[in-house]
């Protein structure tokens, strides 16, 4: 018993003396829970913090439809500004908004007729969204239904909104902007998200390996040879990128065999995005290693960085759940471009053109990370 006690106390003392473990196990969960708590609690309590970027397309132009559009604009969650149909579709395609409400021509009159004629042919307001934003569309449709009932109830001469069993003389429905074959594929999105997360962890492993090499004195042997630091950094960048790229290909081959996830868009675009992402994750690893002092401490801190980056990339949670400022901020997170780019080339079925921006952002990020890493590179501990 005494021996057991001594061994347990020994472990506790070692844990207490290991600052890295203390930070990773105790401090980091606190900081992360604080961050997540701040993001999500503010939405729940304030309500208004949840914000869906939306537009309303009023093709009816009747006084009732105008009141409805105004009510949607005044809704704190939607603040739906008016737009033409073409404008709204363009904004949806560019992922600049989450949903668009299409009020068809003659909607209010048709709803009034439907009430009289017994709801046989009810007019529909369409909630158009990106296929990946089903949850956003669901929330928007709920708000729309309440707003229509509150705004047009008097015009339609009934208080159907108060009766749960009475069907309204109109309908709402959700539609996808992409249309055609590009139905949302959760498996493909999961593949992109998990791939991004674990390839970045692979990049971190490369960083840890580099620090281990330095710790073991291998860099002394490299430095004794007539080679430059740029060659050392460049070789690490390239090897990390090759591994990352191969893993993306393997992952999608696995996804294709097991979940029938295909590259429905441009194959060249997919290769571009995958290569850009592999380069970026390798460069990120280099950057982390340039800040790290020991392999152990770097692994702990790097995991936190990668988990936050993955979360912000929308791999775990739909981005519309974030506050508006955070949704905008995620555009500066390269992993978000990786997830979006891989999604675009897989289930969205988009062309090469749609791969250029993500691949460009990823390549530029890789360049910046690699340059910073090179500037901070140290041969010795």
């Amino acid at each position, binding site marked *: 018993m005494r021996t057991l006690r001594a061994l347990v106390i020994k472990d506790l003392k070692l844990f207490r003396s290991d600052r890295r473990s203390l930070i990773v196990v105790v401090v980091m969960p606190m900081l992360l829970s604080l961050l997540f708590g701040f993001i999500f609690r503010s939405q729940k309590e304030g309500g208004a913090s949840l914000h869906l970027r939306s537009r309303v397309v009023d093709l009816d132009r009747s006084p009732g439809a105008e009141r409805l559009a105004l009510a949607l604009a005044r809704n704190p969650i939607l603040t739906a500004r008016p737009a033409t149909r073409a404008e709204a579709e363009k904004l949806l395609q560019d992922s600049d908004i989450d949903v668009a409400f299409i009020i068809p021509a003659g909607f209010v009159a048709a709803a009034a007729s439907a009430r009289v004629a017994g709801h046989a042919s009810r007019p529909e307001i369409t909630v158009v969204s990106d296929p990946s934003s089903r949850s956003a569309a669901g929330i928007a449709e709920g708000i729309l239904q309440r707003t229509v009932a509150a705004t047009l109830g008097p015009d339609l001469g009934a208080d159907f909104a108060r009766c749960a069993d009475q069907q309204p003389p109109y309908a709402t429905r959700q539609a996808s902007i992409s249309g055609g074959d590009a139905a949302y594929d959760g498996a493909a999105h999961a593949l992109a998200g998990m791939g991004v997360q674990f390839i970045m962890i692979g990049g971190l492993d490369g960083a840890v390996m580099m620090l281990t090499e330095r710790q073991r004195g291998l860099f002394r*042997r490299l430095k004794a040879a007539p080679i430059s630091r740029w060659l050392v950094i460049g070789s690490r960048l390239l090897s990390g990128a090759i591994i990352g790229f191969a893993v993306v290909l393997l992952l999608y081959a696995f996804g294709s065999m097991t979940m029938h996830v295909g590259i429905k868009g441009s194959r060249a675009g997919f290769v571009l995005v995958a290569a850009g992402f592999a380069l970026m994750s390798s460069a990120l690893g280099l950057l982390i290693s340039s800040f790290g002092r020991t392999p152990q401490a770097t692994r702990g801190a790097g995991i936190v960085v990668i988990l936050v980056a993955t979360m912000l990339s929308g791999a775990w949670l739909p981005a519309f759940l974030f506050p508006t400022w955070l949704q905008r901020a995620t555009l500066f997170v390269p992993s978000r471009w990786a997830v979006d780019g891989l999604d675009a080339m897989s289930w969205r079925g988009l062309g090469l053109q749609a791969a250029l921006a993500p691949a460009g952002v990823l390549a530029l990020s890789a360049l910046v990370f690699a340059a910073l890493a090179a500037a901070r590179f140290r041969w*010795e501990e």
Partner: protein
Amino acid sequence: MLLQAKGLVKRFGKLTAVDGVGLEVASGSCTGLLGPNGAGKTTTVSMISGLLAPDEGAVLIDGEPLAGETDPKKRKIGLVPQDLAIYDELAARDNLEIFGSLYGLRRDELDRAARAALELVGLADRARDKVKTYSGGMKRRLNLAAALLHDPDLIILDEPTVGVDPQSRSAIFDNLEALRRRGKGLLYTTHYMEEAERLCQRIIIIDHGAVIADDDLRGLEKLVPASRTLAVDLEGEDAPWLPALRDLAGVESADVAERRLRVTLADLARAPEVLGFIARHQPLHHFTTEKADLESIFLTLTGRQLRDA
């Protein structure tokens, strides 16, 4: 001259780690670089092998200054670091191919060099085995082999035998002597005095970053009062006259162990008087004066205070 280091100075903040160290290594010779922990040996070696740029002074290889990360003169240097700078997860052969390619060796050349290096250190039959399966001594020998692939003229060895068994150490010595006979210049840092005595024709002792002695062993022996100890064989363990011997003028200490009396004198000139005293108490069969070894020279020059840094 293969290597000339002139007035090397290296400062780390306020600490001057190396303060004006100069040394030379000729082809076919071995120079030992000795010093206590923290004396500046590794910093000196780092500057000579191009790992660190000196704040002052210069390193000349074949008379030309060494400068910059990519200086081609680095090809003339082979560094055996103190750490086992090899990849444990890879085979010995793979390690050598990686390190050889750093010096621009091409396939056939690399193949020949790797085979020759493995033969030299006695690892040819384990070339395909992963290094993590090697003993400590084998890893040390591979660490040496990795520095030889590009056939350097100057081999810098930073404590290359730390933690190896006597057999491996002896094998490494044999390798180094073979290399020296082939005309290679060796710069050898070590804590083990017997290694420097065996291998090095010239020995440099540094302390607190500066050279405090630079000579061959015979020259270094002259720096300390080396032959002040008499060793006398006794007929038995019992020497009741020992306290009287200790009271003699000029006797610093006198002790008996295993039928051998060791008397340390303040001056060797007192030896006849002391021997006469002993002869009066027992027959004298055999006596010697003990010659100073490198260890005693080293301790005399650098002191006995512990150095932990």
